[in-house]
């Protein structure tokens, strides 16, 4: 900066003109908020759909005299069912943002599960889990290297690895189910995967802190001449109040299954990275326009490789959770799971062309899909209709995003 103090300032003196007769200072304009756009179907659609679905299910269960749908137990059960797909969908969102695609996640998860169950009896749970994660990350590196260095389309490469890795699982298991025998390992798996942790107290503290922080930054913003309620401050206060409401409604006992906690923690880390760090910003740039990112001095290849490794790593972790849950692995396990994972990301509004997406919305998308499944079970509608309804929901969501995007452009 020091060696470049004046040039543009001088330009400014000579040619600058007031634009539309108003001051273009950062504060003033930053405070203008397009609430209508923020709450549009395109921006918030997945939340609306989720709320609508849960409300409908709650009303129907009430009408049928089933137990309360809104119970912590029921909701956390849905979250538990969704957790594996959700972890993979969050990583899928990252790779979609980077402008790539990963079809191979379900095979990678199955491979990690097979490696874990195959080795745990000999080397113990944690070393086997580490080995499984290493194998998964290696597959991601392989996927990414083929895509980035040979320049083959990611869809094709991962379609190939989807099949090939499943083949490796079949070879490794010789087509049979593997199961864990060692009681120490079984204990470790149970400790890792099953059981619930009560997050009532931390949730209450977090809710209070979030509400206060939100109020504080609203006040600061108002004092410095801006508008108090920006999406950020309003969102913080609202989220904090929601948490407190949950605490009040449940009497401060919110026992969540461990996989749900892992999912929430992973999502929080990824969300923070994408939203607030340089790495996240650059990742969006890499997906939005790789050439512009490259010519801005960003190592595009490194970011894209990282996204592949993250995707496969998350799949590996999901595979470990899966194996720990069942204590065994069937070579055909998780077949087709990649489609649910991708559907969750699409429901969350992630662009298939890169550069746009939000992991929180992906999480909501996963919840939406599993709430549908859950609803079918509750209502005894039979699994036959499930595929049809899910498919319609995904296409309808994509239609809303696409049509909404075109409207937005025209406006």
């Amino acid at each position: 900066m020091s060696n470049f103090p004046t040039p543009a300032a001088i330009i400014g003196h000579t040619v600058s003109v007031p634009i539309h007769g108003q001051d273009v200072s950062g504060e003033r304009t930053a405070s203008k908020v397009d609430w209508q756009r923020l709450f549009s179907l395109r921006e918030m659609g997945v939340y609306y759909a989720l709320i609508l679905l849960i409300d409908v299910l709650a009303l129907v269960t009430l009408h049928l005299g089933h137990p309360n749908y809104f119970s912590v137990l029921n909701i956390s059960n849905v979250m538990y069912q969704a957790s594996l797909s959700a972890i993979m969908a969050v990583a899928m969102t990252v790779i979609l943002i980077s402008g790539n695609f990963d079809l191979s996640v379900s095979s990678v998860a199955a491979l990690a599960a097979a490696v874990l169950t195959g080795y745990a009896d000999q080397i113990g749970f944690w070393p086997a889990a580490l080995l499984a994660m290493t194998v998964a990350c290696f597959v991601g590196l392989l996927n990414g290297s083929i895509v980035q260095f040979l320049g083959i389309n990611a869809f094709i490469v991962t379609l190939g690895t989807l099949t090939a890795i499943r083949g490796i699982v079949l070879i490794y298991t010789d087509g049979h189910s593997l199961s864990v025998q060692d009681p120490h390992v079984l204990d470790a798996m149970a400790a890792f995967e099953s059981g619930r942790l009560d997050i009532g107290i931390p949730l209450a503290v977090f809710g209070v802190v979030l509400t206060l922080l939100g109020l504080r930054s609203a006040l600061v913003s108002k004092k410095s001449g801006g508008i108090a309620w920006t999406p950020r401050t309003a969102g913080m206060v609202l989220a904090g109040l929601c948490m407190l409401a949950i605490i009040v409604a449940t009497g401060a006992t919110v026992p969540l299954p461990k996989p749900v906690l892992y999912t929430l923690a992973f999502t929080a880390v990824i969300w923070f990275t994408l939203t607030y760090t340089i790495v996240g910003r650059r990742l969006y740039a890499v997906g939005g326009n790789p050439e512009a990112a490259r010519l801005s001095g960003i190592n595009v290849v490194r970011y894209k490789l990282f996204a592949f490794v993250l995707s496969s790593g998350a799949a590996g972790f999901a595979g470990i959770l899966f194996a720990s849950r069942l204590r065994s692995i069937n070579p055909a396990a998780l077949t087709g799971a990649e489609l649910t994972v991708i559907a969750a990301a699409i429901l969350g509004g992630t662009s298939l062309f890169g550069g746009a997406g939000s992991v929180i919305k992906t999480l909501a998308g996963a919840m939406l899909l599993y709430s549908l499944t859950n609803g079918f079970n509750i209502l005894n509608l039979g699994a036959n209709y499930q595929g049809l309804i899910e498919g319609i929901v995904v296409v309808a969501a994509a239609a809303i995003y696409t049509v909404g995007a075109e409207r937005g452009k025209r406006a």
Partner: protein
Amino acid sequence: MSDVVTRPLLEGLEDRLLALEGVAKAFPNGTIALRGIDLVVRRGRVHGLLGANGAGKSTLIKIISGAFSPTGGRMIWKGAAVSWRNPRAANDGGVATIHQHIPLVPTLSVIENVFLGAQDRWRRGAAANRRFDALCERVGYHLSPDVVVGDLSIGERQMVAILQALGTGADLIVMDEPTASLAAGERELVYAAVRRLSKVEGKAILFVSHFLDEVVALTDCVTVIRDGRAVMHAETCDLNENLIAEAIVGKEVAVLERMAATSPATNSNAQTMLEIRDLRSAGKLEPISMRVARGEVIGIAGLLGSGRSELLHAIFGADPAATGEVLVKGRCIGRGTAAAVRAGIGLVPEDRMRQGLVPDFEIWRNTSLPALSSVSWRRMLPDRRRERARGSEAIRRLSIKASSPDAPVTELSGGNAQKVTIAKWLFSDVELFLFDEPTAGIDIGAKNDILFLVRQLAADGNAVLMVSSEFEELLAVATRLIVMRDGRCVARRAAHETSEHELLLLAGGGSAADADATIDIAPGRPPTSDQSGQ
């Protein structure tokens, strides 16, 4: 047209294929592209159309090919006044246009591309094969009909485009810089086809080019356009490259006064900012070495495909195939764009929307992209308030016309989008600026802002390398110039020693000395250079 009387009978009225009488074009936004052009294109002749960037050539071509309709004057086609409703109508009438960027379908075969517009029921037939062979016979160039176009070289694709134009049965073929991106050998193919079509088949060809030597060698007559008027009509045999260059440049003094004249003489012991040694890239850039001091603006003159952008990309580390040394302030920088940015180099690329900006990002997220850590908390977490303030600062300093830094860059006009791509580098520690066509396609006001900025950057002790097709601009801001052609640096000049005229000759073909030697007056033809455009 009195000059017709003086011409030989062969060039009489019946040979007139197309005549433009006072054709004018004003755009709704007030831009006047053509101020009344008279032009006569005759059968059997290759008619060269020349002019600097922005002179109105493309507009004229678009009117002839039916993409625009003129706002004044008449267009007479085969003796009757016409007004094409759309390019298809022009095509049906017998005008085929070969655009600079060849619109072929790369996944289809040659023959399928050639007959793409034909209204056949079946994809392939024996009849199509016979017609294709006949076409090849006519241009004297044979190409396998079943090869997929994606596998062809650019020169061969150009030939496919010519076959396509012929396949429609056109009488007039408009070629817009057909050789700009071709290698020397490939150009010969095009020349041979053009000569054959005009001499053997009697087709009229309107040939647009920036290469003066090929215009002299290939065309029968030449029209030069400047500022929307035809300033010269002449028989090529009466001309040489010098005369053409003079007509293109015009007598007017450059609007922008020369930097070289106004700035203090470059300090000979100024610190060396950039040194490149044997920088090369196979097939794109011949080895080049140079040294740039602080405070210098180096203008890189060259036509499209001359290696000018490739040179900037090689310096910036954006060309992985490039080899050679790039030293900034005496230190050799590593390969890759990240190393270049760390070393203090900034590149403003040629295609701002495709290479410069992230379309999903607002102005503020684009301006802070290359130097994120400087607006970040602990160099890790970008601070939006500081970023947005930087966006506002960019808007204010460069007078970008945008309502706020939150405006998406896709909504900006060309000039304003260009300013955002420049602003990206103004806030970081960049000391060496590489500008690739910074003023292409933007209005005159923004153009002057940018040229002024370039001067100012240099005056503050930075170094600038600037590529431009508009040599007038280069002369206005540069201290030294290098001229590139075919991936080579063909000349180096101090700005005060050269002229737009000389640069045009150097970039567009032979040197000034060569041009003197190629004066070629065919005996027996009276000089018929007229000035009917004025």
